């Protein structure tokens, strides 16, 4: 695992009307790392992703990918660089089979160049590549799961389908918004509300509260941080206890 930052986010600020959603957030992520971002509801996690991937224009701040300034690139250009993201509220094509849902990312210039996740170069038949990716991510080919209508799949599979959408781009970075999963060989930025599982997997974490970064570091250290405990639990209870449900 190289220790060069693959992504650097500097001083991102974003306000909506009178509300400061992101106060001044900076962090960097190293290549191949699994980096967690946690925070209670309304702490600005999704806004942060939207700013990094240019779905929202930030008021100020810069984002660097391997040293290149991508702060004002269009969202699809950022995706074509290999920086992918999932959406918390998924909207797959329910009336289509699962593998057809991957057609769109397989149309991208990047997929054409790289052949998608585990592809060997130029893109082959899109349907076949789609099915391969789904199998890779746990859709059992033998039980014909990839061919099932998306409407008949349970949430767990749908979340993986969302990840597959990112994999189709052969990503360098995946930013997972409330999707829990394990991947290797890629840098992962995981936005989570469920602390326990995240802490087991992530190598470093950052905690957001009201648009500000209040802690960053190894999970064990962050768990002990007073401010983090107060923000999340409102008291000095231990973060080892199961966190409350609900989406961030």
């Amino acid at each position, binding site marked *: 695992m190289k220790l060069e930052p693959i992504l650097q986010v500097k001083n991102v600020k974003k306000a909506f009307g009178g509300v400061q959603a992101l106060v001044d957030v900076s962090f960097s992520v190293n290549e191949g790392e699994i980096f967690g971002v946690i925070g209670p509801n309304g702490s600005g996690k999704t806004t942060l992703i939207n700013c990094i*991937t240019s*779905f929202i224009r930030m008021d100020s701040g810069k984002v660097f990918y391997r040293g290149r300034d991508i702060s004002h690139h*269009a*969202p*699809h250009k950022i*995706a*074509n660089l290999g920086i*992918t*993201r999932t*959406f918390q509220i998924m*909207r797959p*094509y329910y009336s*289509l089979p699962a593998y*057809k849902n991957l*057609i*769109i*990312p397989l*149309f*991208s*210039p*990047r*997929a054409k160049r790289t052949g998608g996740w585990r592809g060997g170069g130029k893109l082959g038949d*899109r349907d076949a590549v789609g099915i391969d990716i789904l199998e890779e991510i746990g859709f059992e080919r033998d039980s014909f799961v990839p061919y099932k209508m998306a409407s008949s799949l349970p949430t767990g599979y749908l979340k993986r389908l969302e990840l597959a*959408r990112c994999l*189709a*781009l052969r990503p360098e970075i995946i930013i997972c918004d409330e999707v829990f999963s394990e991947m290797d060989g890629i840098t992962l930025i995981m936005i989570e509300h469920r602390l326990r599982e995240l802490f087991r997997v992530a190598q470093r974490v950052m905690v957001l509260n009201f648009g500000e970064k209040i802690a960053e570091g190894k999970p064990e250290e962050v768990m002990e941080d007073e401010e983090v405990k107060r923000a999340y639990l409102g008291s000095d209870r231990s973060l080892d206890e199961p966190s409350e449900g609900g989406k961030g």
Partner: protein
Amino acid sequence: MKPETGERRRERLDRGIKVRTEGIYAISSWEEMNYLLVPRLALIVGMLILPLAMPSMYWQRVISIVCIYALLALGFDFLAHFVGLVSLGGALFIGVGGYLAAILNTSLGFPIAVTIPIATIGGAIICTLLLLPALPLRGVYFAIVTLMYPLVLLRIIEALNILGGTEGILGVASFPNRWVEQYLIILMVIVSLFGLRRLVNQDVGLVFRGVKDNDQAVKASGLSITLYKSIAVFIASGLGCLGGAFLAHIYMWAGISQFALDFSILPIAATVIGGGGTLVGPIVGCLILVPISELLRAFGTLRIVFYALILTAFIVVRSEGLMVYAQRKYHQFERWVRV
């Protein structure tokens, strides 16, 4: 759409034969093949026979006009229901295509066989460029811009007295004979219909649908929304410009009335009445509305009021449109089910 009455519920299921004709099984027997082919053949044959069934020159002219509107309506349906862009200004395409063909013919002396293709493709390029600024933006901007262009261009031509001013460009060549005129345009409509059908059923059709339903996911998947919208606008405006070029050669003239409101509102009314999202519906809508409009010609612009009001009525009542209803009846059956 499943009204509850007491303990019963209406249920809609695909007919057996519809399910049997999906995929490769469609050619397994005559019954299946007929199920798929008959409606399509009926449409094609019907359209091809029409000029023979109505040999009077007046009605043949009407058929040509129906086809021109059909091209516009196809474009509108494609843009609105397959890509999510509402085009309020079909007149823009007709006008650009018409003027372009007229100029190519009268000023540069090109024959019809050349003016029509150039007017179609060139016109499509011009219209796409004109509409380009609105494409990266939300749908309402596209609607506004398509609304504005015909209204403004018409007034500019009038005020600055360019392109023939209120008189227009006269002396445009006509078709060698009226059968060529008729069948060429009918052919264009049929080709466009089946071509578009094919297009939206390909994988790229999924991309367009994504642009319409979930553009965030499309952007996040590395595709440029603007690019795909541009492609869609190019296709739709090409159809409209084709119609405009035909119009110029049929009437041997291109003028500001080609930016008229009929061309903007009738395609919309035809689509809503005929059934949006089917690509066939708009054509059926034109077959109904254009002859009526001819009959109403004596009433002046009342016919526009008529289209607008019918259109509004259909939208408010949330009618699905003729062809959607027809397709539903053809493909599905209903029954009552105990809850």
